Structures are given as C-alpha cells and as structure tokens.
C-alpha cells in the first residue's frame, strides 16, 4: 500500500493545532499564491482535481462551487459541515483537533473562490471539547491577521443527526427546527437566510490547500479515475487498531483493514463490514474480500462508500441485534416531517425488536421489507431511503439469521 498524507500530513506533529507549529509546518503558504489567481481559475482547478465531497455523498466539489454567483447583490456564505453524527464516522474531529489551521486555510481559499466574506462551521453538539480547539485556532488566526476580511464563526448544534443534512443544517443555523427542505427544481446553491451558500464537509475543504499548493494533477495522482485523491478512511469494531488512517481511493478493503487495523481482534474471523458509516448498508466477509474502497465499487454492490468509516464485525456478531442497534438510532433521529419516515422508522425498529425477542413470525420479516419499500424514494431527504437500504442489505445477506431468530 502506498502511504499518502494529504489531509493528515500534520496529524503526527505535536501541538500542530497552534498557529506557530502549524506555520512552521507550512500552514497558510498557499495564501500568498491565492491572490495571483482569479476566483474562477481556482474553481477551475478544483474541478480539474476531481475533488469529491467527503461528507458522504461524494458530489463533485468544483461543480458545486461553480453554482455560487460571482456577482451577487446579496452576500454569499460558506458553511462547513462538521456535524459528523453518522455512526462509525469520526474523521472530521481529527482535522479540527489535529490540524485546525488546515481547515481554516481551506476556508479562506474557498471564500475567495466563491466570493464569500463569512464562513460558519456547524459543529456537532457533542463535540464541545473539539470545538474549543478549533475556536482557539480561529482566534489565533484572527489575531495574526490571517483571516483578512473573512469572518469565521463556529456554531454548535444541539445534538440532532439530521442537522448534518445540508438544508436541515441551514434551517438550524437560521435558528429554526432542523428540518430538511424540499429540493430545488434545478441545480442551485443552498440558501442561508435567502443568501447563496456553499455547504461542504470539513474534510472536503481541508483537501483544498493541497490542491492549491501542488495542483490538480498532483491530487489526481492518487485514487482512481472517478474517485480521485484520498479519504480519511476509518475503522471501528473488531479490529486490533481501530482509528482514522488516510488512504487513497481504490485500495482494497481487506488490505486497508489488515495494514492499518492490524487485522481482526483476537484472531477471530471476519463476518461482515458496514463500509462507510451506518447508512451505507452491510456486506459479507466474502464481499469484503473483493472490494475496493471507491464510490463506484461500492455503488456496483448496491451499497455506498459514505464517509469511509468502516464498522468491522467478527464471527460472534448477531446481525439481528446489529440491525436493531442501527434502527434504534434512526427511530430516535428521524426528523419526523415525512409520514413514511416518521412512522416507518418506529415501526421497523419495533418489528426487529420483536424478532430479536424471539416473538417474531415470518410475516414480520415480510412486513419489514414492505415497510422498507414504502420508506424508499418517497420522502423529502435521503434519510428514509438510507434506512430502507440498510434493512434490505441486512435481510438480503443475513436473512437466515433473522429466520433462525423467529
């Protein structure tokens, strides 16, 4: 495996969250070059780099930046999504604690490119102590005059998973309930109090300084044709060394787990992997043996790469209780707007609970799939379809375990 550190290059440096250490290791160097380029030229470089959003969706970042108006009577905003609440995902917090200045540098480049003067970082409510580190870095950058005419404001969420969905995040930032908005009819920016707004994940923006420094081709030198660059992949569960390790897209999942994770804990056998955060479905050990970590490979299996946070499960794992655990989370976190999601998440949770308690019947399994079908493709946001896909992935791969529990 080829070692690569684009976003994690200062992670091992002690006190890299302080301005002096960060600057000694190259932070903010790209800002000198920034003003030699026009905003549209920067957007062009981001497009060429093929940088994809790292918040789970993998949307091309450059195209999204290009939706922001270069001429606008209203102020433009940049919002950094640090809600990071997807179970199995804990990469963004590495950035804001180990290299917050990299994020700030990325924010400044982004603001310049989309002509925004104000950036918000929306931080998961439970990340209070990590927020303090980031706030310390922002304060230092202010004092050092690095931010220039850009303001960076940290906003702490109140602990709702759905506020990671970009439009719910903006509602929340506007002081309203975190409810996803109806989707626009054609591609357009997001809107914060009616002002054009760009929402990107922490890691997406933290990847920008590298591209600015080394060029689009240097970024494309890693990863695959369609999934260029790297991701802060992560592992949790039954591995020897759980953690966050950057790798390029396209590496083999098992190589990654064995190389960085040190293999299975206590020499147990692998049973299943949730590839990229709770909402990405589940795969069997045999599938894990043959899969590469990029968007297209996972998509072709009917799963998704998500945030790259893998949950690794050994042979002793009960898949019914894993699904129950996930469904409890979704039951708790559905925002409750859409009927299929509000009522469906509760119902599927209770049905799987029944099966887990050995009170289930085969009709309950059918019903589970039927409700999953009703939850798919009929709601405002993709929360409900994701829950639906999770259920289908469990039942299509481990149905025998559910039947055995009846």
């Amino acid at each position, binding site marked *: 495996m080829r070692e690569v550190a684009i976003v994690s290059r200062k992670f091992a440096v002690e006190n890299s969250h302080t301005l002096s250490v960060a600057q000694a290791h190259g932070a903010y160097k790209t800002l000198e070059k920034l003003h030699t380029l026009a905003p549209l030229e920067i957007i062009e470089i981001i497009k060429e780099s093929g940088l994809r959003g790292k918040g789970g969706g993998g949307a091309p970042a450059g195209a999204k930046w290009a939706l922001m108006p270069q001429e606008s009577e209203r102020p433009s905003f940049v919002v950094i999504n640090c809600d990071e609440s997807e179970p199995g995902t804990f990469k963004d917090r590495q950035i804001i604690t180990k290299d917050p200045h990299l994020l700030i540098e990325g924010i400044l480049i982004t603001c310049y490119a989309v002509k925004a003067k104000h950036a918000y970082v929306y931080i998961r409510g439970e990340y209070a102590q990590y927020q303090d580190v980031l706030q310390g870095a922002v304060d230092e950058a202010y004092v050092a005059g690095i931010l220039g005419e850009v303001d960076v404001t940290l906003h702490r969420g109140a602990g*709702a998973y*759905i506020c990671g969905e970009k439009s719910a995040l903006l509602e929340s930032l506007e002081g309203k*309930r975190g409810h996803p908005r*109806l989707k626009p*009819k054609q591609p357009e920016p997001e809107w914060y109090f009616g002002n054009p707004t760009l929402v990107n994940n922490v890691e997406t923006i933290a990847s920008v300084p590298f591209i600015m420094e080394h060029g689009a081709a240097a970024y494309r030198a890693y990863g695959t044709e369609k999934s260029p660059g790297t991701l802060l992949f992560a592992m949790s569960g039954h591995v020897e060394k759980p953690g966050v390790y950057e790798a390029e897209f396209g590496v083999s999942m098992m190589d990654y787990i064995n190389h960085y994770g040190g293999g299975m804990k206590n020499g147990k056998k692998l049973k299943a992997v949730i590839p990229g955060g709770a909402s990405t479905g589940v795969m069997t050990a045999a599938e894990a043996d043959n899969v590469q970590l990029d968007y297209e490979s996972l998509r072709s299996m009917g799963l998704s790469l998500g945030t790259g946070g893998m949950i690794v499960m050994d042979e002793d794992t009960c898949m019914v209780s894993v699904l129950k655990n996930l469904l409890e989370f979704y*039951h*708790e*976190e*559905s*925002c*409750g*707007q*859409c*009927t*299929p*999601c*509000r*009522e*469906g*998440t*509760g*119902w599927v949770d*209770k049905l799987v609970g*029944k099966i887990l308690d050995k009170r289930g019947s085969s009709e309950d399994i059918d*019903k589970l799939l*039927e*409700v999953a*079908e*009703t939850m798919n*493709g*009929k*709601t*405002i946001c993709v929360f409900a379809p994701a829950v639906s896909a999770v259920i289908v992935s469990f039942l299509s791969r481990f149905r025998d375990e559910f039947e055995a529990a009846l």
Partner: protein
Amino acid sequence: MSEMIEIIVDDKTYRAEEGSLLIDLLIREEIKVPYFCYHESLGADGNCRMCMVEIAGQKRPQIACDTLVKSGMEVNSKSTKIEKVHTDILELELINHPVDCPTCDQAGECSLQDLYMDYGLHDAKVTIVDKVKHDKKVDLGSNVMLDQERCVLCARCTRFTDKITHTHELGIIGRGDEAKVSTMPGRKLDNPYAMNVVDLCPVGALTSKDFRFHQRVWFLQSAESICHGCAKGCNIYIDHNKMKYQDDVIYRFRPRRNDAVNGFYICDEGRLSYKELETNRLESMLYDGVVVDEHEAIAQYKSLLTQYQGRVSVVIDANLYSEEIEAIVAYAERIGAKVFAPLECYNDPSFADDMLKSAQRAANYGAIVKMGLETNMPSDAGLIINFNHPTHFNAEAEIHFSTHKQESNALLLPMAAFSENSGSLINEVGLEQWCEKAVEKNSPAPTVLSWLEKVEG
C-alpha cells in the same frame, strides 16, 4: 400571468398556467388525490407525502404539491402502482393513530377517515405492538383543544400562526414519532384568529371547545351567510340543526371561502357571534314591561302613531338587510315620518386590524352609506320607531322592534334575527352579498317585512 399550457392527467387534457402547482389543478378539476398538509393559503410543505402521482419520464412518484406544471406533462393519479403508494403511506399514518373515531368530533369531516374508507384499509393490517402515547387533552388556549395522538403532523396549524397571523404560538417539538404540536413554552394560543386552526386541521386533533361534543357533523345543515360582526362581510356557513322535539338552533359559524373578501378565514369574535342569536332573545310583545298579545300590541302601535302624527322618527339598524331598509324607508314616507340611521355607535377602532376586522361594526354599513340616509339624530323626537338599532334614543314615546330583550317601557316587538331570514348586505367597500335563511324556529318572530304588513293592515 404565465402562459396557459396543456397537460394530461389520467388520459384527459387540462389547461393550466405554466409553472403553477400541479395539486392546484387536481383540486380545481376535482381529480381526487389524498393529501393532508397542502393548503391553498399556506402553500406546500411536502411533509405528508400523500399527494403522490406518477409523472411520465420520472423514475419515482412525485408529490403533486411540489410539482410545477409543464407543457406536455403526463400525470397518472390512479394507476395501481400509485394507489399502492397511497395505501402504504396511509397505513403508516395510521399505525400510531388512536382510531377513536366514535368519540372524535371530526368524524364525518375528517380527511384521514375519508381516505381510510377510500383506500379500503378496513381490515387493518396494523398490528403494531405499542402505539406511541401522547397527551389527548391539551388546552392550547383560545377555545382550541389538542389531541396529540390524533395529529398527523401536517403542520397546517403551525404554518397558520407563522405565516398568516405571524404570532408564532404553535410549534412542533420532538423528533420522529415522538414529534408533537405544542405551544411555545409559557405561551398560549392567543390571537384573534386562533380558532381557524380547527378548520385547517384535517383530522380531529384540533377541536373547538365551543363546539366539541355538541353535535355530530352529519346532522348539521349549512346555510350560506355573511357574518354580522363588522362591515367586512366575511362569508360564513351557519351550521344548525333541529333535533326531534326541540327547536332549530345554531351550533357554529364556519368560514366560507371567498377570495375577494375573507379568503379562508374569519375572526374568532365573528365566529362566536352565533351565540348572540341564541341568547337573551326577546320572545314576547311587551308594553310598559307587561306582556301583551298581538292584537293589543297593534292597537297600541296605531294609537301611538295617531297621537304623535307629524312628530315620528324612524331609526334603522345598519345590520338589517337592504330589502328591509328599503321597505322601512318606503313605510316611513307613507306615514310621514323622518328616517335616521345613526352610524356613530358602530365605530370601534379598537376592533380593527389589518387582516379582516373592520372598525365599522355593522354588516350593512355600505347600504346605509349608499342610500345616503340621514345619520344625525335630532334631539326633539316625539315618537321613535326603532328597528333594532342598538342605541337608546330619548323621546317622548318609543316603539322598538327588537331581536333581543331590552330594559325599556317602550312597546317592544320581537323580530327575526338575520339567521332566520334572507336578504342582501353591502359591505364597507360596496360589495353586495346574499344571506340565505338558515334557521326555522318553532315559533318564529316576525320579520321586518311581515311586521310592516301587520301594522299597516
């Protein structure tokens, strides 16, 4: 206005404005699609997910309330596939619903109940173990009671207080199936239009404290009328019923849509003004506080008229129907009396707002102005014949046609209220509107016109 284009719905061609909402067309053309959350005055919110239709070229079903009409669009609202979608979502809607229709006041005018019947869920597959429990009796304030279990979370009520009254008392708290409507902490639902949320609520979650448990809606008859609370002329339904062995009584006023006047709403004060029609009514003829029969009353009437010949003033209430006012004016001319319609007493700026409520609190205000009747009362009247005017005027003698009891020694003659009679009104901006007769009392008080016949006969 945008271009008119053609679209196809269920194999039939319809015309609509390009870019208008598909659901508006479906509602206008009475093409049935189930829905809870959309409302023409509140716009689309897209939360109930019931209004799904199939659109040619689109992989997934789409909600009609968030679909803009485009030329050549082909919509299917009735395919087996889409009906299954409707049934499935409805089934989910019902899993936590208490299905307490027998004790619910909305029964008979409930969208959920109607859809349940339409989509044939009679043999409920709904076998959920534990339904989510909520509060069934929350007094929100302003006569509005909330049953959180019956609520389908369509957010119509919260959008009403956000977008229409801008008072923001209501909100939805909690997530997922724990979500529920509530007032903001420490606040009550408290605005002059609050009770409209009861009409907006598609189910029996919001009920009117004033109406609940009084009458099953399917027994009610509705007459189209105009509220008499002020000169705005809000269109209403008078819902009334005559139960066996009892009198015909009014149970409620409801707003009747008229985009040129009141839209979908009426104010609470107007809504509750029906009560005045059922209380403290003058039922017998009185002279000097003593009950008299019709024969004696008419004899007394005539004798007073002769006694004050040449010194008679007729006073007209600006709530009478135009037809009545015209007949009184003609009658006054025949008996040589002067006509007055004092308006001052109706002026109440404290009642007015910029939504519906007008400072002129008389339903036929516009007719008085249009007819140019004298509005200043002289101070030296001999005999006053008062046709239900609310002011007491000094005079040597008085004959008072009145809907309600009065503290008076005058000759008091009971008359029919507007709900017991039909006629037209002109509102403050000159719009003429018609009121149907709603109520037929067991022993009805005579109308103005029949009184005039009696006293001239």
